[in-house]
């Protein structure tokens, strides 16, 4: 276990070092993060500029969902996507063989292979959004709600990670994955809306088929104190199941891996 922690720490340090090499990016990424947040917020502002409440969601609570969405997108673009892009590259040029040779689990090695440290800006933006949303509401969440909300953020990130790993495993069979990730990204974009705002069919699809609701809406509800215990447990259980499934898919994908270098 400590071996893996050290591995993550080393790779994180390398990524930070290479990010620091392009210090000018600091400003660009900061400005981009702010602009991006504003862009994401606009449809919400338009909607709540006219309506007070949509299917039981007012602006403040919808902003919390948006904050979770922004935070998860930071994790996606800062940790998951760079690593998977790296994986695709390695499969194509054959250097994935060296990853398989290393005395650590290949999935762990790949999942921790690259980071975009500047995405931390988006995390800060997400936190600011949450603070503003609760300031608007006029009531702070209780410590228990904060704890559950934070825990479910991690759970949501894990659910997202599982989906993306399944998608990466698919690249062992089909060879190309850029557009599959692009599709997942497009679907994930729906996560900016509370799932209850969508009509019944989509609500079902995004809760049970492609669990986007598990990633953003439910954790936000936990922080808002409106998530009941059963739903919280189902969220955690469902994510664990997803993790197990993605692990199985990854394992069977590895088995059918035929190196490109030979």
């Amino acid at each position, binding site marked *: 276990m400590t071996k893996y922690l050290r591995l993550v720490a080393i790779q994180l340090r390398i990524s930070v070092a290479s990010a620091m090499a392009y210090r000018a990016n600091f400003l660009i990424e900061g400005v981009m993060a702010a602009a991006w947040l504003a*862009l994401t917020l*606009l449809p919400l502002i338009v909607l709540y500029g*006219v309506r007070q409440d949509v299917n039981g969601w007012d602006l403040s609570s919808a902003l919390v969902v948006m904050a979770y969405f922004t935070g998860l997108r930071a994790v996606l673009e800062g940790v998951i996507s760079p690593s998977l892009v790296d994986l695709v590259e390695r499969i194509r040029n054959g250097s994935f063989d060296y990853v398989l040779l290393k005395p650590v689990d290949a999935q762990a090695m790949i999942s921790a292979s690259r980071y975009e440290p500047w995405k931390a800006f988006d995390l800060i933006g997400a936190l600011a959004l949450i603070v503003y949303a609760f300031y608007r509401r006029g009531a702070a969440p209780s410590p228990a709600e904060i704890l559950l909300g934070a825990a479910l953020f991690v759970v949501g990130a894990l659910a997202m990670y599982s989906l993306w790993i399944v998608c990466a495993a698919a690249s062992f069979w089909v060879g190309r994955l850029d557009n599959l990730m692009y599709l997942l990204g497009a679907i994930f*974009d729906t996560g900016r809306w509370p799932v209850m705002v*969508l009509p019944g069919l989509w609500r079902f699809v995004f809760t049970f088929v492609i669990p986007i609701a598990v990633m953003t809406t439910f954790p936000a509800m936990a922080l808002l104190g409106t998530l009941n215990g059963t739903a919280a447990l189902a969220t955690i259980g469902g994510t664990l199941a997803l993790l197990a499934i993605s692990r199985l898919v990854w394992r069977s994908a590895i088995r059918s891996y035929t190196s490109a270098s030979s």
Partner: protein
Amino acid sequence: MKSQLSRTVRALPTLLRIGVAETVAYRAEFVVWILTTTQPLIMMSLWTSVARGGSFKGYDADAFVAYYLATLLVRQLTGNWVAWQMMEEIRMGTMAMRLLRPIHPFVTYTASHLAALPFRSIVALPIVVILLITSSGGVTHDPLQLGVLPVSIAMAWLITFAILFAIGALAFFLTQTMAISTLYFGLFSLFSGYLLPLDLLPAPIAKVAAVLPFRFTLSVPVELITRTLPHREVAELLAAQAGWTVGLIVVAVWTWNAGVRRFEAVGT
């Protein structure tokens, strides 16, 4: 110069045939690309469910259905992935193959993407039928507008293609243009009317949208379908669209010509 033109014209049928073959060969990928353009369906259900509680800034549920179906149709016909294709070919070095051909890559890429259009039409056709059946009230019957619609869609296609081609050519200068294409998509979603109709945007932002090219890649053809406009305005819109088309093709070809000099083929 003349011989280059005639060479290009003579090569076109072959290029189109290759494009068709490519689309058939990479059909799984093609289906994935079609699926990525289904977001208007989600937006449609969201806004119609909002509009059920009374009309939203002049849009009732039917108007939203017509708007987003038209959006889906235009997006289906005009969307392309040339930027991603170019980034990959530049990174992998296979771009060298393309440079050997005596035809400008803007033409070869255009042909390969045009060839996908018949397949996209297969998807688009049912949308048109549903659009006509479900929202007869939200669709214009003006013959002039419907007559110029193909022209407008063609120009929207060219503008989108030129922008993405220019972004793809940026890969000559930068190794990772993924961030730029993400930024493009973010700006496009908002300023083209893809996420929500432009007239719902707050006034200052709608003003910005009016002068950006994004509007002409999607919203203009959609407006030609869903609204009945004075003929004068139709003419103005088409003229502006034509201006953007020419201007952006020039920018795209210029970016390419500036970038290709820096190209060093990687790989073997």
